[in-house]
């Protein structure tokens, strides 16, 4: 079980949280202008990163708030958690498998 540092409440066991999948996927501003391929990519395609991965969590059985975590998927070590609206650290950006 992971120990997850909620940016609002502090460290709590994983059982208090719900995982929300890959972070920083913005809903297209104008979905009607997208091709079917672009819409499918938004809905279904994921990086499935091997390495540093940014994901959403929700402190479902706590404060109820969403936040993001940067976790290494080869070790499950969470490097950092940060609030919604913040970006991952520069050195973390673009980390792909």
């Amino acid at each position, binding site marked *: *079980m*992971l120990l997850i540092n909620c940016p609002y409440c502090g460290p709590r066991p*994983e*059982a208090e949280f*719900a*995982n929300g*999948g890959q972070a920083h996927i913005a809903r297209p501003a104008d979905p009607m202008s997208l091709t*079917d*391929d672009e*819409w*499918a*990519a938004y*809905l*279904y*395609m*994921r*990086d*499935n*990163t*091997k390495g540093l*991965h940014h*994901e959403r969590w929700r402190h479902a059985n706590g404060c109820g708030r969403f936040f993001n975590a940067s*976790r290494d*998927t*080869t*070790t*499950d070590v969470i490097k950092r958690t940060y609030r919604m609206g913040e970006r991952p650290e520069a050195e973390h950006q673009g980390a*792909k*498998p």
Partner: protein
Amino acid sequence: MQKFSALSLLRAGLTGHVGWQRQWRSPEPKPGYDVIIVGGGGHGLATAYYLASRYGVKNVAVLEKGWIGGGNTGRNTTIIRSNYLFDESAGIYEHALKLWEGLSQELNYNVMYSPRGVLMLAHNIHDVQSFKRHVHANRLNGIDNEWLSPEECKEFCPPLNVGGSMRYPILGGALQRRGGTARHDAVAWGYARAADALGVDIIENCEVTGIRRAPTGEVVGVDTTRGSINAKRIGVVAAGNTSTVMNMAGVRLPLESFPLQALVSEPVKPIFPCVVMSNTIHAYISQSDKGEMVIGAGTDVYTSYTQRGGLHIVNHTLDAICELVPAFRRLRMLRNWGGLVDVTPDRSPIVAKTPVSGLYVNCGWGTGGFKATPGSGEVFASTIAKDEPNKINAPFTIERFRDGAVIDEAAAAAVAH
């Protein structure tokens, strides 16, 4: 290939069992092959075997980064069934089940296919309705599946607790009698041995590090930890590592990789006659021929490449098992482990051509790929050999997500994934 038979066993027994040959060679990679299969699990080995045996493509290499039987093929809970809801799923899983029935004879290798029955338990009204719908849908597709009352469940599997004391009582179950188990590593070894005998090179400890493409886009070979190897056709069957391999060719897939755990108990005398599954309270259990109770747990909630999951996931399953079979409350667990499963949004596989010419992919079997091993290999071999999908795997494309033609077994299984 040294043929196995009662006579050969007797003969070797009389001479001290010193005459057995290695079951497959350990060749150096050749400079090139007609087809390279990336991933030496059950599905990849089956693909190579059927390429050589049914589709006349014998100049084939299977590249495995670890060892044969070391990945998900040796980590699953060996359940075989074909009672899926949708016609497309029925087609591919039933194709596999039919191959299972003759597999030991075809491979001359005892894969210990045991059609002992798979009983899927219903615990609420929604389960009952959903499973009865499955029973009817399966029968329309010519697949055996029948509804059992709680008393009939108890008769079929006596250790079950069908009393009124459970939090989620057993309200009945759907039984597929032709379902059952097989010995998972024997499946890998049997396919490896049979493919090797037909000339397939099985190259272990050989990790693919790049996919090489011509300026015109088509694949021309792979880079590996044992050098570059040429091939005009490459089939990727890498389970949880598929995204990583396909990224080397710039192909994005609708996949996420999760750890999935299993565990076994200490061995006990025969007590559990069938496979019991409960999607609702999340328990999957059968007894191996060694006597261990083989138990499947759920996936973790987050993606990971660690091949290990959280203990609370296992505990959750054991809670359910102890409710279902109170006699198991004092069983001790011997060991647990994790595998890496690649999951698609609709929980159905992708067995298809890709946007890159000469590159094929067989992935997305998620938490239930073992049962499909022979059928998956057969249709993937057909797809690679003919450069077009077989009728059975034609619906299992990447484009189905774009086109809205998903095969939503996720919803059909009614599991809170």
